[in-house]
């Protein structure tokens, strides 16, 4: 029973109530995780009539998508040839629709900080991820550190909102054409698993930017990406499962207060036959009961 309800129902003075019923910090009673948002309420309630109307609108698009899938199935003409040195573009900026695939988040969304970020189009038709970072911690007694902005693509899906994975097995490099401001950013590749412990599996690598008026094309081999969950690097590392990609993101949060801006032209993939490294981090067996505890 919740403490306040307990007081109201039993109608006792607060001083008599067991002090242990009041928690000053969030309590995790079980290992099981209830929802994949980690307790952040992002749902908006839409009335049922409105929902039906929206659903019918969606239906049209979904059927269109489904038709395309069926057609592709029949054609069965997948890309088979590895074309070294050629970049396949996954996400390109330039139109308003291209921005629809991205979600922008920052710590101020849930009153956990004061950073603000946005993803817009520049005058030259590129994506501009910009905003203001602030490491100021709100005085709520819970938040320890703050200061991040993040962009993330929507989860890969098939028609009728069926979730699926991106398959990048044919590639071994991530190619980004960006123009930064000298800050370093984090490239995140989410590989969400089925069980709750795997929900927050994200592979990271740093994107260093040069700054200045010149565009840079950065190629990051997938072997360099390291595994972390909920922002903590994991002791047991595994190479990234390239057939289980759920989303891609870039985050800014280098603990430097001030404005940031990262112009993005495209995010692409490449196969480089000269890169043979499978995983950049040591895979030796660590002593028992020391790691991953």
């Amino acid at each position, binding site marked *: 029973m919740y403490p306040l309800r307990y007081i109201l129902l039993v109608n006792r003075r607060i001083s008599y109530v067991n002090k242990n019923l009041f928690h000053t910090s969030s309590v995790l009673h079980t290992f099981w995780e209830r929802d994949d948002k980690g307790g952040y309420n992002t749902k908006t309630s839409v009335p049922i009539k409105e929902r039906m109307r929206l659903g019918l609108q969606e239906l049209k698009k979904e059927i269109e998508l489904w038709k395309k899938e069926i057609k592709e199935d029949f054609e069965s003409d997948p890309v088979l040839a590895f074309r070294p040195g050629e970049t396949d573009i996954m996400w390109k900026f330039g139109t308003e629709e291209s921005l629809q695939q991205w979600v922008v988040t920052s710590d101020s969304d849930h009153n956990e900080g004061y950073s603000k970020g946005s993803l817009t189009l520049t*005058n030259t038709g590129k994506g*501009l991820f910009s905003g203001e970072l602030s490491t100021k911690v709100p005085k709520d007694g819970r938040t320890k550190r703050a200061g991040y902005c993040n962009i993330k693509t929507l989860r890969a899906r098939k028609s009728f909102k069926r979730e699926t994975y991106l398959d990048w097995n044919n590639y071994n490099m991530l190619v980004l054409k960006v123009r930064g401001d*000298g800050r370093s950013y984090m490239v995140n590749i989410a590989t969400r698993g089925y069980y709750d412990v795997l929900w927050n599996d994200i592979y990271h690598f740093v994107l260093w930017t040069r700054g*200045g008026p010149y565009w840079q094309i950065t190629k990051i081999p997938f072997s360099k990406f390291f595994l972390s969950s909920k922002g903590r690097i994991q*002791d047991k590392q595994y190479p990234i499962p390239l057939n289980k990609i759920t989303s891609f993101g870039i985050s800014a949060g280098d603990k430097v207060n*001030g404005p940031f*801006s990262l*112009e993005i032209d495209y995010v692409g993939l490449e196969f480089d036959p000269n890169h043979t490294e499978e995983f950049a981090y040591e895979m030796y067996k660590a002593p028992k009961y020391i790691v991953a505890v």
Partner: protein
Amino acid sequence: MLPSKIIRMVVASRSITECLKVMPLTNRNLSVSTVKLCDTSEESKQVTLYRSFEDIKDKNKDTYLDMIRIFLNRDYVYRRGHVEFIYAALKNMESFGVHKDLEVYKSLIDVLPKGKFIPTNMFQVEFMHYPKQQQCIIDLLEQMEDNGVMPDYEMEDLLRNIFGNKGFPLRKYWRMMYWMPKFKNASPWLLPNPLPSDVLELAKLAIHQICSVDVQTQITVYQSRDIEDSIDDTWIVSAQSPIQRSLLRDHDVKQPVYVEGAFRVWLKSNQVNYFVLRADPKPLKTVQEDSDDVSNIKVPFMFNIKPPIKKHLQLSTSVHTQEDGVILALCATGTSSKDSLLSWIRHLEMDGNPTLADVPIVFTLKSGVKEVATVIDNEQNKEVETSK
């Protein structure tokens, strides 16, 4: 009741109240702690001086280390309140300017007793023997991580002597020593650590970093006072490569060039403003050929004796020909003022760019990052200045 008896009772009760008043003091004086025995001032009653870090006027590394020494010397045998002291010390590191100092972190860990917290059986290990103390040192290590301070092997010995071979802080240390060196020097644009505090040196570093696209770039530091009629007296870090010089030489004098800025570049936590001299973009003319179209195949050998058609040949573009503008030069000035930029243009003109004397130069100094290299039609923002 006899009056004398009543009087006696009153006296007795008074003496009791007097006693009660005195009691707390005597109680204090009977305390076991040696510290509390010797002085009775308000501060000494606390186990730890919580606000003592804030009270110090002269905040530097020496006074910070002095605070640790004071804590250590207060009680040598029955020292208490390590955790509270370390947390209070961690909170005040930045104001003392020691948050990036490994030595200070080590001396903070050294506050803890050696041997006392070492678990003696596996259950103690598993259930985090002395959890407050272990968590405190984990938090300290995390603060080090946040501030980019890499531990050394001496710290490993310290942690081993305090928490034993299986302590959680030691595990955290090992993780740090695995991951931090991997990324310490991984940046393709490495900067000196610590960064110089001089603004000129920072500007040089920033311009050098930006111009790493063209290794031939020459970075020159001009003085604005060398130009006649200049108001400002400041330095100008200018960068131009031979390719950019030739691009400017071949520039059509009827077309304007733009001085744009200030744009921001970050060097760790420092920002440097820079300005760009650029010309309008020159889009590359690409001839799209439909390879499936077989109606008109060109056969190069059979009936064609003439040399290849010249219009198909193009000059290859350099890195300076960006799709939103041709970058002709870069600079950062001490004042970032319009006058200093005028001096920069004059310096460039004397330094091998005579074209700048004839080319109209547009100063668009208010544009933000969103307008990095777009021609702004707004007349209010630009001010056409033809040289001479």
